[in-house]
């Protein structure tokens, strides 16, 4: 490995000699690099002071990254640092694009940063460049036993690799623990606690490369999600449902030999493994679940306050190097926290990356399922992603829900930025689901109606069939008669009530009017009854109940007569100004008869009801 670096070193130097710089006007007057190796994600932050030493104006700066690092580059940003000292503040990120520089040495990838303003002769500018690499740390040894600690190799250059001359530079590498196996010793290099310092070095020519290797202990959880599929499903009935399918692996040194649960639990052997994962969910997350193909995984804890919800999950086994696990996390979120409306369009504002700490995601797929009937879909993501659309069928869907799919490789926590999906949706389309349910139920009822209305008899001329038809007709007639009798009885009640009212109000006219109306309706009912009774009498099926019906009708008729008599008597007596007691005595007999008749009629009605 050292040989490889030496070759590279030679290569760069030799090329630098022949390369005549087109951008030689720029000089980096000061470069401060800090490399953070405390987790399995390598973060490099450089503060670069650029100076224009030439006469022409310069508007872009080239950053060089060796190819072996560039393929692991997950994130690169540059911003203009305008303040000084403690009042440092960075402006918005500057646009960066990958460029194919002609006449430049091979094995290097160049990124061009557009400067916020053109640099005149003698001007200088302070830039903050932040880059993140994944899978750059190599476990060495590559296989360890359960009791071993995990050691990693990191390779870089002590000198800042740049197409420009660097006047003054220094490098600080932070490691997670003071236990460093070895590091390349150079002039001006030293280790202080958890920091390894190189430099300062002065007046280094362009493309200088001085390889260093740091071999150090790192037992931080190497959580790598080989694939993470996040599904965000919007329901305008008040919920956003998130489902996250993880396929995790411990990306560190592989476990050699067997795993002993006894050693792990009694002696705490297994420092290189991890046991818990922390998931930071948005506030007000509800209905959280954690399961895999087998079912619910009970080793999880959830707590939250108004600002966040924290979920601590424990996979089914402690994760050692090279071990896989896959599981699903799901939760619901209130709609109003993430869905907004602006200028006639609705949009969801949601976080892109994984809600876990320090996870590298090799392949992240974010699916946003919009409600059925969404139109004019557009996506706004602050960084480049692959995008396409799918259709998903879920509960009560007809045409399917449009799904926006975003895909990105090599995702790190720095990509946990908000993205937006804009779409148009008519609120009336909300009623589609209930309408489908209503139609479903209605069809059920209609089926019942059709069943009751269809005649499924095979032969329509058999005697039994005809008898059944006749019986049904008789039943319908009896029901009609009963209905008429009930109507008559209610008229009786009305008449009675008007009679009782009269002595109190003294209004004879109203009483007479009620009587007149009653007479008219009785006459009508009698007409109806005559036809119905005629049919019943002639029907052979009705012979059994005919006497009862006839009795009912005659009793009711008698009741009518008695009631009329009572009415006439009372009204007459009242008009003759007889005393109350006198009237009572006169109608007492009639009243008694009426009561007994009413009893008989009620009994007969009950009897007919039960047939």
């Amino acid at each position, binding site marked *: 490995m050292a040989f490889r670096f030496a070759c590279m070193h030679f290569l760069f130097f030799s090329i630098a000699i022949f390369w005549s710089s087109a951008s030689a006007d720029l000089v980096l007057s000061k470069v401060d690099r800090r490399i953070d190796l405390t987790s399995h994600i390598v973060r490099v932050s450089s503060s670069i002071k650029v100076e224009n030493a030439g006469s022409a104006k310069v508007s872009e700066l080239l950053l060089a990254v060796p190819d072996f690092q560039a393929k692991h580059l997950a994130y690169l940003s540059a911003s203009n640092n305008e303040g000084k000292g403690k009042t440092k503040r960075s402006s918005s990120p500057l646009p960066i694009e990958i460029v194919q520089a002609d006449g430049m040495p091979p094995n290097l990838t160049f990124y061009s940063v557009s400067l916020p303003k053109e640099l005149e002769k003698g001007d200088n500018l302070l830039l903050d460049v932040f880059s993140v690499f994944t899978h750059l740390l190599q476990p060495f040894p590559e296989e360890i036993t359960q009791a071993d600690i995990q050691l990693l190799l990191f390779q870089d250059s002590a000198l800042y690799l740049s197409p420009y001359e660097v006047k003054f530079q220094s490098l600080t590498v932070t490691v997670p623990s003071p236990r460093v196996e070895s590091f390349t010793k150079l002039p001006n290099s030293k280790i202080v606690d958890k920091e390894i310092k190189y430099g300062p070095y002065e007046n280094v020519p362009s493309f200088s490369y001085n390889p260093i290797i740091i071999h150090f202990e790192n037992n931080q959880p190497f959580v790598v999600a080989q694939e993470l599929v996040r599904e965000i499903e919007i329901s305008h009935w008040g919920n956003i449902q998130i489902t996250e399918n993880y396929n995790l692996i411990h990306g560190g040194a592989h476990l050699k030999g067997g795993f002993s649960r006894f050693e792990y639990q009694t002696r705490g052997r297994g420092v290189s493994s991890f046991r818990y994962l922390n998931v930071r969910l948005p506030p007000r997350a509800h209905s959280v679940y954690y399961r895999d193909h087998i079912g619910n995984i009970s080793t999880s804890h959830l707590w939250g306050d108004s600002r966040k919800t924290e979920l601590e999950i424990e996979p089914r086994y402690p994760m050692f190097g090279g071990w896989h696990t896959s599981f699903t996390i799901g939760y619901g979120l*209130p709609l109003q926290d993430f869905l907004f409306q602006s200028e006639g369009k609705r949009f969801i504002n949601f976080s892109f990356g994984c809600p876990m700490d320090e996870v590298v995601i090799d392949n992240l797929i974010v699916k946003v399922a919009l409600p059925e009937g969404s139109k004019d879909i557009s996506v706004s993501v602050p960084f480049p992603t692959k995008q396409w659309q799918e259709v998903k069928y879920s*509960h009560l869907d007809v045409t399917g829900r449009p799904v926006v799919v975003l895909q990105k490789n090599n995702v790190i926590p720095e990509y946990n930025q908000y993205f937006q999906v804009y779409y148009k949706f008519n609120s009336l389309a909300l009623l589609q689901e209930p309408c489908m349910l209503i139609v479903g139920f209605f069809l059920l009822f209609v089926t019942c*109606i059709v069943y009751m209305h269809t005649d499924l008899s095979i032969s329509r001329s058999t005697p039994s069939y005809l008898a059944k038809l006749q019986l049904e007709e008789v039943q319908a007639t009896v029901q009609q008669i009963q209905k008429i009798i009930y109507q008559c009885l209610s008229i009786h009640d009305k008449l009675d009530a008007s009679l009782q009212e009269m002595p109190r109000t003294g209004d004879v006219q109203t009483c007479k009017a009620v009587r007149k109306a009653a007479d008219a309706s009785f006459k009508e009912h009698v007409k109806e009854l005559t036809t119905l009774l005629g049919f019943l009498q002639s029907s052979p099926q009705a012979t059994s109940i005919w006497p009862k019906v006839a009795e009912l009708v005659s009793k009711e008729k008698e009741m009518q007569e008695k009631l009329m008599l009572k009415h006439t008597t009372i009204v007459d007596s009242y008009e003759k100004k007889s005393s109350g007691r006198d009237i009572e005595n006169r109608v007492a007999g009639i009243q008694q008869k009426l009561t007994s008749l009413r009893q008989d009629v009620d009994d007969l009605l009950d009897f007919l009801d039960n047939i």
Partner: protein
Amino acid sequence: MATAISSPVAVEWYPVQAFFLIAVGLAVTAYFFIYEATSTRKSRKLSTELSAALVASVFLGFGTLFLLLSSGVYV
């Protein structure tokens, strides 16, 4: 200015709504089936049947929707 979008009915009310709508729906359904069973071919009226069926299905439809929503099946 972006305004937040919330559900047409407060989510907390879904269980109560589901209960009452389904209760009314089942009552009307019961009336419908009693009517079907007790009326004869002659006395049955199609309009009564259809209107009872429609009222019952509207209540049952919305009731089922809110039952689904309150049990966490967001359609």
